[in-house]
């Protein structure tokens, strides 16, 4: 373990491999716990919402492109930023669109205007 730590200190100012591993393991438990409470009616938004979260690779892509030297690195970094942005923006927007539609029953309230013409709702008599 000491050998490994030596290596890390020599090459980075970060928290070190073991520190990063600790964070990794704890995050895995958090992810598992948080998701185990999601009801099956929300599984599709869950998939697209967690999809949006891994778009955080955008931050990595920006750092890489910022420090890029030479054509190869610039082209690769540029593509990475485009793809990652697509992932982030598309993921959050589509998830929001889905979740916006989930509504509880509102007695007497008129139906919310949908973004496509829906047939007029019958009066609701609970």
């Amino acid at each position, binding site marked *: 373990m000491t050998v490994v730590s030596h290596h890390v200190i020599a090459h980075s100012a970060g928290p070190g491999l073991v520190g990063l591993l600790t964070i990794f393991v704890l995050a895995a438990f958090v992810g598992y716990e948080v*998701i185990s409470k999601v009801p099956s009616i929300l599984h599709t938004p869950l*998939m697209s919402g967690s999809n949006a979260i891994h778009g955080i690779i955008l931050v990595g*892509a920006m750092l890489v492109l910022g420090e*890029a030297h030479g054509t190869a690195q610039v082209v690769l970094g540029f593509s*990475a930023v*485009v793809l990652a942005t697509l992932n982030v923006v598309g993921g959050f927007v589509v998830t929001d669109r889905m979740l916006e539609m989930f509504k509880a029953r509102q007695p007497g309230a008129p*139906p919310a205007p949908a973004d496509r013409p829906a047939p007029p709702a019958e009066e609701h008599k609970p």
Partner: protein
Amino acid sequence: MSRATATDLVYLVAIVGFILALKGLSSPRHARRGNLIGAAGMLLAVAWTFSEPSVYSDTRNLVLIVVAVVIGAAIGVPAARFVKMTAMPQMVACFNGVGGGAAALVSITEFIALPHATIALYKIGEVLFGVVVGSVSFAGSAVAFAKLQEIMTGRPVTYPGQQPVNALIGLSILGLVAAVVATASTPLLAVVLGLSLVLGVVFVLPVGGADTPVLISLLNAFTGLAVAASGFTLNSDLLIVAGTLVGASGTLLTRMMSEAMGRSLPNILFSAFGSVITAGTAEGAEGRSVRSGTPEDIGVLLAYARKVAIVPGYGLAAAQGQYAARELADALAARGVEVYYAIHPVAGRMPGHMNVLLAEANVPYDELEEMDQANTDMPTTDVALVVGANDTVNPAANNTPGSPIYGMPIVHADQAHSIVFLKRSMRPGFAGIDNELLFDPKTIMLFGDAKDSLTKLVSAVKAA
């Protein structure tokens, strides 16, 4: 406070935002707010990253970053805004694929930029993990997208020696990864990249169209792990935590989905389910009579029932019949009939998809009953109205051990007092097997397009 500390704190806030986003999904009430908090966290993290000296010190690169972000957003926003809700599975596959691709590209660029002479071996290992897993996710998602979009066949694609060949590709990647770690050779990395893309393709080919969403969930988890690997390379807690959250949650979700289908994950991935139509329940489907009714008969049956369960399947969504279904439910409710929707967890084209489609038609989520709840209510239900569903109500899943869907939990429509099937034809569903329930004496069939049939039922109910 030093810059580095400020950055860590800002990223910590973003991480909390992501966790709240996932936590919000535990109820439809808070889900939207949670997602917005997650998006705000993302925006904060990205905006703060622009203040990193390494991002802004080279003006040309900074301009390129801004241009790339604008391009990505200009494609992503309209795509996400205008995609049809029925096309959601392939949209998720697409966004997941680009994320995996981005993770792979970040790792490749890091590999080229790394000072190879002085770098620790495990650093190269992390980079390679990002390249391999990101590429598999990218190529796999692309094939899944093609299958769901029906650009290619949704049937499992098989060839002789498939599993051994795929295993060989996987093993060669492992071998080459070891070689790259030892030699830090860039040409070898290109070979690893190419083989990983091939692996992504061949990994997805044998998975049938109906199983593809489970696979997308798995690839989602892969992308998360590839992002976490980039986090190790870049020494970023933010990437590690966000990637791992997705990796862990995606793995769990994949397991929950395979359980809802009553199958193990290896079975879904490797068995080419659906390619062989097993003769599980085929005994004597020929020459047996089914009872079919007119919309008027069925309208009366529904109008004078006390409790009606609507059991929707993908056929409802394919016919764009969600609105007509809600109209029927409203017409019945207006007559004092108690109506609820019995939703199988894998109804639709991906888990939870049916709920999204019904929500789009303004069905309040408290009328949507999850399978277990619906099954408790089914014995006291007068009519189960099965619209465009088949496999998810097939009793063969309970009583025919030879059947390919044996063991899958189902909605017990068979326990309702009578059953009405709205179906296009007697054709079997996704799994390609016959449904005994269609021949049950309690069952009445109404053939035709789901939307047309529902519209006719609405008039019939009003007239009854």
